[in-house]
């Protein structure tokens, strides 16, 4: 009843090509974005900003990057964390080695460095694919883990690669309260999400998808695999690099290489698969799921234990967390291998027909 596109006619090419062709979608998304910018800062306390919202925004950006590569171009990567690390440390170096370097410029430059590194580590994708490629990307992960720990130039001679950044400033606006950090990340995320959506609708995104669906066939119809694959690696790594720089600068403040370990790479891949491969919306769902779940379990399990008169120790909680996390992932993949985004679109289809399903 409420969600139906009857009577919405497209009378121009511009109307035909817009991102949300259905008016209800358009208004809903605009409302959510407006609420995120204007409403949430008034409603939420500091803890939520620090523990959930800021990590969610940054990891959603990273998941977006992974999704462009894995979901749209079909190149599995297990080295996403490494590109985040490259972005973070490159941005750090730009910031401290060049006097008067603006923070935003350092973050974006970090992203560009990550993109270049991504291209280099994407070269094997021209020869190998599938699981072999996934293993090849692990090489990037272990190499950069090692490099930031052992090569002291990268970390300005800081012991064990732990560095810190303070005084975040953007055009005279000093970003230090959680609410300001939140708005800064939200602005960047909104911008990059729009960019990603448009990229996947453009010639480049279509090339990626053709490569994903069948690379030999794509080559036959005149798509250059080298350009398509390497551009996907570059764009994806750029997103990851920016996300990594944000993670270091804005969320952590001071960090060491372990912040971008292989667990981070797995986590990002989980987000993409659970959220939905090849879906911008899915990246957000996945990030929200993975960020909120451990916090929820952490709060919920001791309470549940107390309910049945069982005291669960901290170690017990962490083991139970492992178990439930693993079980949920397995359960999810069995029930809906295409992720939350598919559930979402099924729901929308149902809603279109509601309340007369036949």
């Amino acid at each position: 009843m409420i969600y139906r596109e009857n009577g919405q006619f497209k009378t121009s090419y511009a109307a035909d090509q817009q991102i949300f062709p259905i008016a209800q979608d358009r208004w809903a998304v605009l409302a959510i974005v407006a609420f995120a910018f204007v409403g949430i800062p008034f409603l939420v306390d500091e803890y939520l900003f620090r523990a959930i919202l800021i990590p969610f925004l940054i990891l959603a950006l990273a998941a977006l990057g992974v999704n462009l590569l894995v979901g749209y171009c079909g190149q599995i990567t297990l080295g996403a964390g490494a590109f985040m690390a490259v972005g973070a440390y490159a941005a750090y170096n730009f910031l401290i080695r060049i006097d008067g370097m603006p923070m935003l410029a350092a973050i974006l430059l970090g992203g560009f460095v990550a993109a270049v590194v991504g291209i280099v580590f994407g070269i094997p994708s021209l020869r190998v694919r599938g699981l072999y490629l996934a293993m090849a990307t692990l090489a990037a992960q272990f190499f950069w883990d090692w490099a930031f720990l052992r090569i002291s130039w990268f970390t300005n001679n800081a012991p064990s690669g732990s560095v810190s950044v303070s005084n975040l400033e953007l055009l005279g606006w000093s970003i230090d309260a959680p609410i300001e950090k939140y708005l800064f990340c939200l602005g960047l995320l909104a911008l990059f999400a729009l960019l990603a959506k448009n990229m996947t609708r453009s010639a480049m995104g279509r090339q990626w998808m053709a490569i994903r669906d069948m690379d030999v066939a794509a080559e036959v119809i005149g798509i250059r695999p080298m350009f398509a694959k390497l551009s996907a690696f570059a764009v994806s790594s750029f997103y990851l690099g920016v996300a990594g720089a944000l993670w270091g600068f804005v969320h952590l403040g001071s960090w060491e290489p372990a912040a971008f370990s292989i667990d981070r790479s797995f986590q990002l891949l989980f987000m993409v698969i659970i959220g939905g491969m090849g879906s911008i919306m899915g990246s957000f769902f996945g990030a929200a799921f993975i960020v909120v779940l451990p916090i929820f379990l952490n709060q919920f399990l001791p309470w549940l234990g107390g309910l049945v008169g069982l005291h669960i120790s901290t170690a017990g909680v962490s083991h139970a967390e492992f178990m439930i996390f693993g079980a949920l992932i397995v359960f999810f993949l069995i029930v809906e291998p295409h992720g939350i985004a598919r559930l979402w679109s099924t729901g929308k289809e149902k809603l279109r027909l509601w309340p007369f399903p036949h």
Partner: protein
Amino acid sequence: MAFFLETLIGGLMAGMLYSLVALGFVLIYKASGVFNFAQGALVLFAALAMARFSEWLPGWTGIDSPILANIGAFVLAGLVMFAVAWIIERLVLRHLVNQEGATLLMVTLGIAYLLEGIGQGFFGNDIYKIDVGMPKEPVMVLENMFEGGILINKEDFIAALIAALLVGALTLFFQKTATGRALRAVADDHQAAQSIGIPLNRIWVIIWLVAGLVALVAGIIWGSKLGVQFSLATVALRALPVVILGGLTSVPGAIVGGLIIGVGEKLSEVYLGPYVGGGIEIWFAYMLALVFLLFRPQGLFGEKIIDRV
């Protein structure tokens, strides 16, 4: 020269241990097309079971002899691995026939988390030791050929021997027995195998059981070397380059790949490491595998990848 040989032999033996873990990957990939990221968790789980059972058994049954306790623990741990294989097939794999590789890979990651959680929650999360009477002291050999001889770790030597035996047994099992033939048929083509009456579900239980037993052996050897602790699960990550190098579908590939990686790691650490700050073992193996991949995308012994449009 003696030092070089010593490093070389050390590398070969470490390589044998890697190939033990790599074997588990190859077995499951061959029979179900699943890249099993949970192999490391299986190793940890099996080792934990072994260590704890051998500790608990004397208390339960009053057996005093450590040999009997070890044998009993081995049997019990084997049964546990069978249960794990059966549950995984029953609850997970059965529902995921015909899914894409990425989904299956994710599922095994989920299984890995689950096993790590259950294993540590049930068996405890301290460092345990497995004592199956492996000799610890190193021996000198070839003393008349080189000055000072070559130092060989007896434990490594026995481990390598066990690994070699296991590989031989597995090869025989795959090539000569009816079950082995059925396994190869399933690996070749699920549908065709099913249509000639091979029960897919039972085959999968068997293959996960075999992989679980290989994990148990690997867990005992690694565990008696390093102690049973959480880091055992990361051994799988060290063994991955071995699998890439040797090819995902080849048992001999796992062995040869293991030897190459083992030797490469040790030699690079000793001769290259000092120049770049050490600790390069972990990524050097991956780089080595990567370079190989650029020339042979399917690994050394993998099946040739043929594309059809």
